[in-house]
C-alpha cells in the first residue's frame, strides 16, 4: 500500500518536472498532424493556448486527484477547457478537431510516461491508465461545453422566434391584424393571445383579424387554442375574425369535428378587412378626380 502511494506521487511529480518536454512534444505532434488548421489559428497562438492548459493542469496535479476527475482542484483546468472549446467553436473548428486537440495531449503524456517507466511494465500500465482516464474526462468536458454553447444559441433563437413571430399590426383605426406564421403550439398561442389582448386594450380596437394563412397544419389542440383566443377577444369587447383558412386546414377542421360556426371566418385577409370596414361603417373607394383625369 505504501509503495503504491509513493508511486502515485512519482507520476505527478515526474510530469511536473517534465513540463517543458510535454509541451514541446505535444506541439510537435500537433504541428506534424496533417489536420492542423493553421488557417484558423497561428502556431504562436496554439502554443500559448497549449502552454496555458498544461500549466494549469500540472500545477494542480497531485497524487490524490490524478484518479479523482471530479476533484475541485481541476476547476481551473475545466474553466480553461471550456474557454478553449468555446473560442474554437467560434473560430470555426469542427468538434472533431477540438476533440483531437485535447486527445493529442494524451499521446504526449503517454510517450513521456513510456520513456520514464521503460523498464517497469506494471507501473507503466498503471500510470497510463490513470493519465488516460484523466484526459478522457477532459475531452468529455470539452464536448459538454461545446454542446452547452450550441444549446444556448438554440434557446436564444427560439426565444427570438417567439418574440418576432407574433407582431400585432394596426391596419386601421380600430382594426388590428395578427398574421400567424409557423406552427402553433400551446406556448406560442399563449403569447399570441396575450399580445393580442394587450394590444386591444392599448389601442382600443374593436376588431381583431387573426390571419392563419401561414400556419401549415391545424390539429384539435391548435383549433381549441384559436377558439379560446376568439372567445377571450369577445370577452374583452372586441370581435375576432379568422382569415386565411387553407383548404387542407378546412378539411382537417371538419374531419376533426371542430365547431367553428360561432367564429367569423373569411377566406383572405382582404375580405376580412372588408368585413371589418362594413362593421365600422367605413367605405373605401376610388378617388373621383383620378377617374376624371385619366378620362
Amino acid at each position, binding site marked *: 500500500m505504501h509503495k503504491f502511494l509513493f508511486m502515485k506521487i512519482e507520476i505527478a511529480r515526474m510530469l511536473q518536472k517534465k513540463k517543458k518536454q510535454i509541451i514541446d512534444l505535444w506541439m510537435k505532434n500537433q504541428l506534424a498532424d496533417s489536420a492542423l488548421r493553421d488557417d484558423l489559428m497561428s502556431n504562436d497562438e496554439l502554443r500559448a493556448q497549449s502552454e496555458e492548459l498544461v500549466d494549469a493542469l500540472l500545477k494542480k496535479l497531485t497524487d490524490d486527484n490524478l484518479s479523482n476527475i471530479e476533484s475541485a482542484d481541476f476547476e481551473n483546468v475545466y474553466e480553461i477547457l471550456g474557454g478553449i472549446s468555446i473560442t474554437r467553436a467560434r473560430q470555426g473548428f469542427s468538434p472533431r478537431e477540438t476533440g483531437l486537440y485535447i486527445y493529442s495531449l494524451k499521446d504526449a503524456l503517454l510517450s513521456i510516461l513510456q520513456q520514464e517507466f521503460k523498464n517497469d511494465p506494471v507501473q507503466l500500465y498503471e500510470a497510463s491508465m490513470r493519465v488516460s482516464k484523466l484526459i478522457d474526462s477532459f475531452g468529455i468536458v470539452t464536448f459538454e461545453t461545446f454542446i452547452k454553447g450550441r444549446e444556448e444559441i438554440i434557446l436564444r433563437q427560439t426565444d427570438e422566434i417567439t418574440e418576432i413571430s407574433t407582431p400585432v399590426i394596426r391596419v386601421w383605426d380600430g382594426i388590428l391584424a395578427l398574421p400567424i406564421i409557423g406552427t402553433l403550439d400551446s406556448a406560442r398561442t399563449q403569447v399570441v393571445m396575450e399580445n393580442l389582448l*394587450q394590444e386591444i386594450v392599448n389601442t382600443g380596437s374593436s376588431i381583431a383579424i387573426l390571419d392563419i394563412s401561414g400556419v401549415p397544419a391545424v390539429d384539435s389542440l391548435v383549433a381549441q387554442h384559436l377558439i379560446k383566443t376568439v372567445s377571450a377577444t*369577445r*370577452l*374583452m369587447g*372586441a370581435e375576432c375574425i379568422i382569415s386565411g383558412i387553407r383548404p387542407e386546414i378546412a378539411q382537417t377542421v371538419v374531419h376533426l369535428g371542430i365547431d367553428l360556426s360561432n367564429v367569423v371566418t373569411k377566406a383572405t385577409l382582404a375580405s376580412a378587412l372588408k368585413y371589418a370596414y362594413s362593421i365600422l361603417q367605413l367605405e373605401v373607394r376610388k378617388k373621383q378626380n383620378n377617374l376624371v383625369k385619366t378620362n
Partner: protein
Amino acid sequence: MEKIPILRMGQFLLVTIQIDLYDRLALNLEADLVQMVSKTGARGVLIDISVVSIVDSFMGRIIGNIANMSKIMDAETVVVGMQPAVAITLIELGLPLTGVHTALDVEKGMELLRKKILVDGEELDETYNTDSTE
C-alpha cells in the same frame, strides 16, 4: 358592510366595480341589481370591471347569472373593460359568458346598449317587414 353602488342613467343602470369582488359582495350585487332592474324598469345594465384584476369561477358565474336574470326581465347586460388577464382566466375556466355582451370601454358599451334597445324596440317592426318582403 361594503356595497357596490348601482347608478341609474335614464333607461340604463350603471355598475362600476372598483374593488376586487369577494363572494358575499358578488351575491349581494346580484340581488340588488335584479331588484333595481325590476324597480326602475331599466332596459340595459352596464357593468364596468376595468379595475377588477382577479376573477374566479364563482365571479364568472355571477356575471353570467346577472346577464341571464336581466335578460328574463327584458334588460340587456354589457360588461365593459375586461382586462386581458381576466379574459384569459375566464376562458381557461371554461366560462366564455356567451349570454353577455361585451365592449371595450363605458362609451362603447353605452353605444352598444342604445343600439340593442333601438333594435329591440322601435326598429324591430321595420326590420321584420323588410325581411319578410325580400
